[in-house]
């Protein structure tokens, strides 16, 4: 066994010199694989843009904020979908970040060592649940729960307040922006939690121990040492979750209520770019303005996600290097 190991360590240089051709083929294949990804990415962007061009031409820049979406008269605007996409994603972040922080804090500082791995794995497994499952679960379980208990309670309490009350009014449908944001929050929780846990673990123990030595409590160490040290990476992890929330399709489609209206209340139905494309695609004919508008929406979503993910990579760059 050990002999074989030494042999294999010793042999590569010689083999390399002998099979130059094999090396070249291998290198070529690797280059090709790398180039393929770039080509695919570029191809998709160009294709989406060209496909959406008729819609951009027909409606001009106001396509981005027009709230009309009328397939009968062929007037399309992306306003409602963009609004819905951003509002659900941002709300999801608001719900998910505190919980993810709690999970990461618990796993790195509070949990007994034997618990850290199972709980950590369980959180990561949440990410492996197919989104259609979240959709069905949300529609058949969460939506009725929201309609019968959560929303009536919110309407009666927060709905009465001046100012923010307007966010919590209207009939309790169960589905809507708020429910969609909740489901999204659960879906992006594992990504944010896993990133936070990883970066918290990278804080050099000597920093934390010094702080403890000065008599800091666990919370003070978290607030004064760990968080400042990992601030940027944490923001990057949040952006990662945001990027995922923006493009999520199936689960959102089930629970968002799918109406092309911007409602002031969080209980109102809305839609997102991804849900509109998923729902309307089967019934749009080739070369129709509707198909073009859907492709244009796809392009906008692509650009949005690209910006968010690029920002996340930029913020996480120090961690990625390490």
């Amino acid at each position: 066994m050990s002999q074989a190991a030494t042999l294999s360590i010793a042999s590569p240089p010689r083999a390399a010199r002998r099979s130059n051709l094999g090396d070249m083929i291998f290198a070529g294949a690797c280059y090709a694989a790398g180039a393929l990804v770039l080509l695919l990415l570029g191809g998709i962007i160009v294709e989406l843009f060209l496909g959406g061009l008729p819609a951009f031409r027909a409606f001009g820049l106001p396509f981005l904020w027009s709230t009309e979406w009328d397939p009968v008269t062929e007037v399309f605007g992306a306003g409602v979908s963009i609004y819905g996409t951003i509002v659900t994603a941002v709300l999801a972040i608001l719900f998910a970040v505190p919980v993810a922080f709690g999970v990461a804090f618990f796993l790195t500082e509070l949990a007994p060592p034997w618990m850290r791995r199972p709980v950590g794995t369980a959180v990561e497994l949440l990410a492996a649940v197919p989104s259609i499952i979240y959709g069905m679960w949300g529609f058949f379980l969460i939506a009725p729960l929201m309609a019968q208990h959560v929303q009536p309670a919110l309407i009666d309490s927060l709905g009465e307040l001046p100012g923010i009350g307007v966010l919590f009014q209207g009939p309790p449908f169960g589905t809507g922006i708020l429910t969609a944001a909740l489901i999204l929050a659960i879906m992006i929780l594992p990504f944010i939690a896993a990133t936070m846990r990883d970066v918290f673990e990278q804080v050099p123990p000597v920093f934390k121990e010094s702080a403890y030595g000065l008599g800091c409590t666990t919370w003070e160490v978290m607030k004064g040492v760990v968080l400042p040290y990992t601030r940027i990476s944490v923001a990057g992890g949040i952006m990662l979750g945001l990027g995922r929330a923006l493009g999520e399709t199936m689960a959102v489609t089930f629970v968002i209520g799918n109406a092309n209206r911007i409602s002031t209340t969080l209980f109102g139905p809305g839609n997102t770019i991804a849900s509109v494309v998923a729902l309307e695609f089967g019934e749009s004919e080739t070369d129709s303005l509707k198909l073009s508008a859907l492709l244009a929406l796809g392009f906008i979503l692509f650009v949005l996600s690209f910006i968010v993910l690029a920002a996340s990579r930029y913020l996480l760059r120090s961690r990625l290097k390490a």
Partner: protein
Amino acid sequence: MNRRSLLIVSGLTGAAPLLGRAAFAQGGAQGAQITGAGATFPNPVYQKWAEAGKAATGITVNYQSVGSGAGINQIKNRTVDFGASDAPLTVAQLTEGNLLQFPSVMGSLVPIVNIPGIENEQLKLTGELLADIYLGKITKWNDPRIAELNNGLTLPNLAIAPAYRADGSGTTFVWVSYLSAVSPEWKEKVGVGTSVRFPTGTGARGNEGVAGTVKNIRGAIGYVENAYAITNKLVTTQLRNKAGHFVKPTQEAFIAAAANADWTAPGMAASLIDQHGAASWPIVSPTFILLPKNPTDAERSRNVMKFFDWAFRNGDKLAQELEYIPLPRAVQDTIRAAWRAEVRANGQPVWNG
């Protein structure tokens, strides 16, 4: 254990398509194959016909219910042997695609409601009321206009929550066709299409989504295909037809509507919406098949016709079991005549049955 079971699973899933394909090829060796794509609404009956007809005709039908729009695209590009659409194509569209359109079977839509204390087929509604509900003009179930029709029922002071199909669908097309037929305001403000801009309410995906929404929300109203309402025991309503009678959604009422329709419309696009007749259910609609008039493969085109010929002769009972409505005999004969006259390959008629 983990890695090994993963390997086994991935091995199985890898092999499954191969197995499937082998079985498929075998079927093809014994008989002919045809492919179709389109409407989701008639999918159950097409599948049933395909299964039952395979033994008699030797034709394997591979139908994909991808949606009417996608089906139209596919038949225009000739990637399938026949397309299927819930909404009829216009004569101009048919000429452009060089397509023959004929109806295959009919279906009906029913309103479904969730009002505490209201049982199946109890509530009486009219088309005008439905249009005003979906326009957001009637917002409470105890509205005097609803109460006036329903003496003897206690209607609660409950908000009406209209639910609609959020995905583009033939079901929505038929529903809004009806609302447009009975309400000028709907026709002007919203119009007709496979997806429209609903002024109020909440959208859900598919029949199951609409049914689920109506079940979840007290005070909700929605619309689904009758077959779906029956198999899921949903609470339907009565509707007032053009003759002024309130009818319940029954097979007899659907057949009465079909009998009164005018089938000579161009493209055989008979409208069964809001038909005359004392017993007619007002929301009945045919679904259509699209066939190239200039098939590149005459054999496959003939097999499509053979299959539907078989279905017309032997499939009525199967269709009725699934709560669809078979076409009247005379219409089926008109369709055969159209096949003979209009579908030609190299100048020769493809159908000579």
